[in-house]
């Protein structure tokens, strides 16, 4: 759509459709186009102006920073299958490449072979794994992990949690408990609560973000599977309505397939 030229009604309609197809949502798509039309100058490229408007949503967006505690603690949460465990593997690799030591806590004690999956990622990244086996109490693993990380002087502890639908209150309560245990064991607040959102998710992603933010105060989003055809447009509403920034982007299944979020390139790809 970035071809410059005339801004006809058809052009604006195409751009609105592109935003809808990117999962921005019909009301937000129409609002963005209306705003852009008002300030639009005839010499500009309509698509570029829309992209600029989209990128502006993330102005003041907190960038990804490795937490500086001893250990810095990152808790990873989200609904089932979004890419939490894989993202943790990638993040561990990224931190290791920066020369930091990493511990991983296998607080997903529910899912079949979750421990083995995280163990593989720990080995690949050169991170230390704290696990207690399937069926253990997630809070107990979390507590153990903080103690072990402190004893080893680990720089960053990343906590994997089981996927859970936000509609299941007992599971959301369990998540709150894990966070409390981490903070009690560390003697200070968790540094980062990363919500992993799948880029293929539709409008339900906003409900997910709202519920997880209310439960455990999400500080950032990791948007995964951006190497597919989905555009991840739901993060605009997550940013606008909840103030939660996108910090990381997953671009594949390998341990190097993790990028720091860039609003400009995200916006251009959104309507490309």
């Amino acid at each position, binding site marked *: 759509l970035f071809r410059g030229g005339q801004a006809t009604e058809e052009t604006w309609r195409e751009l609105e459709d592109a935003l809808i197809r990117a999962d921005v949502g019909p009301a937000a798509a129409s609002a963005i186009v209306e705003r852009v039309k008002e300030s639009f100058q005839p010499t500009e490229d309509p698509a570029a102006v829309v992209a600029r408007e989209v990128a502006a949503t993330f102005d003041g967006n907190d960038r990804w920073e490795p937490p500086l505690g001893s250990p810095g603690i990152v808790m990873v949460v989200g609904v089932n299958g979004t*890419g939490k465990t894989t993202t943790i593997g990638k993040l561990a690799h990224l931190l290791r490449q920066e020369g930091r030591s990493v511990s991983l806590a296998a607080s997903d004690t529910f899912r079949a072979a979750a421990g083995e999956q995280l163990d593989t990622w720990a080995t690949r990244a050169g991170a230390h794994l704290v696990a207690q086996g399937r069926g253990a109490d997630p809070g107990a693993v979390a507590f153990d992990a903080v103690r072990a990380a402190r004893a080893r002087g680990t720089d960053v502890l990343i906590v994997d949690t089981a996927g859970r639908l*936000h509609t299941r209150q007992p599971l959301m309560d369990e998540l709150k408990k894990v966070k409390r245990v981490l903070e009690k064991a560390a003697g200070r607040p968790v540094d980062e609560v990363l919500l992993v959102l799948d880029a293929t998710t539709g409008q339900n992603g906003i409900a997910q973000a709202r519920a997880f933010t209310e439960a455990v105060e999400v500080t950032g989003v990791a948007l995964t599977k951006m190497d597919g*055809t989905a555009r991840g447009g739901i993060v605009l509403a997550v940013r606008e309505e909840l103030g939660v920034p996108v910090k990381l982007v997953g671009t594949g299944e390998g341990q190097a397939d993790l990028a720091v979020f860039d609003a400009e390139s995200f916006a251009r790809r959104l309507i490309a």
Partner: protein
Amino acid sequence: TLNSRFNAVFRKLRSRGKLHPKQVDMALAEIRTGLLDADVALDVVEDFLSRVRARALSDEVMRSLTPAQQVIKIVRDELTTTLGGEHRPFKLPGVNPVVIMMAGVQGSGKTTHCAKLALHLKEKGRQPLLVAADLQRPAAVEQLFTLGGEIGVPVTSDGGDPVKVAKNALKQASRDGCNVVIIDTAGRFHVDPDMMKEARRLKDVSHPHLVLMACDSMTGQDAVVQARAFMREIDLDGFVLTKIDGDARGGAALSITHETGRPIFFAGTGEKPGDLEPFYPDRMASRILG
């Protein structure tokens, strides 16, 4: 609700008992927004609405005393029909062994559904064999072995690549007298040509009677793109709609059925092997309409 919004639309413009086509268009605009909010793909919405419009502009609706209700009924009927119409129970072809291949994008619920389907068929007197042909994702094989152990269904994963695993599994099934073979595969994107090629090769060597695609019910606009691509690349027989125990409206269900004409056979309603239900088109229609 959609009903009250329609009533408002029709009340405002109505004059002298005869409905104006403009009112129908305004009502359709409301439906369009509602369906997009429910994650139905844009092209599917436009197609769907043009069918509804043709029916709504008929004489019986235009002259009706309750046009709002008529239009709602048309929308609901069209939705239910596209989603599969009447609920059809899942029946296996009468061959031995029946081969079922599971496909879909990453994280959609394939491995879990393989276990659910195996348990379901075992309870119906079949002898299933689960095949762990995802050798790529860390601990995918272990995951299926663990699930198989929980439900008392044998699992096999014999071979250095997925194609060999599938071939060996078929041999094993005939040796062990298993009459249903369920093949779990790696999640993949249609834009990955190597992975789509592998999927086709897997299909070529295992000759599945059913290729089922798992579709996550919270999927947005991309559902139609995925369904179209998988249909083109490996020709699907039907779908499983997963994670409907969440609160996603589930418009992806309309996108995938409208795009492919294939039915949704099952709905996944939880994480445990027993959390499997038949798919009911009329219930899904109500859910999508909100």
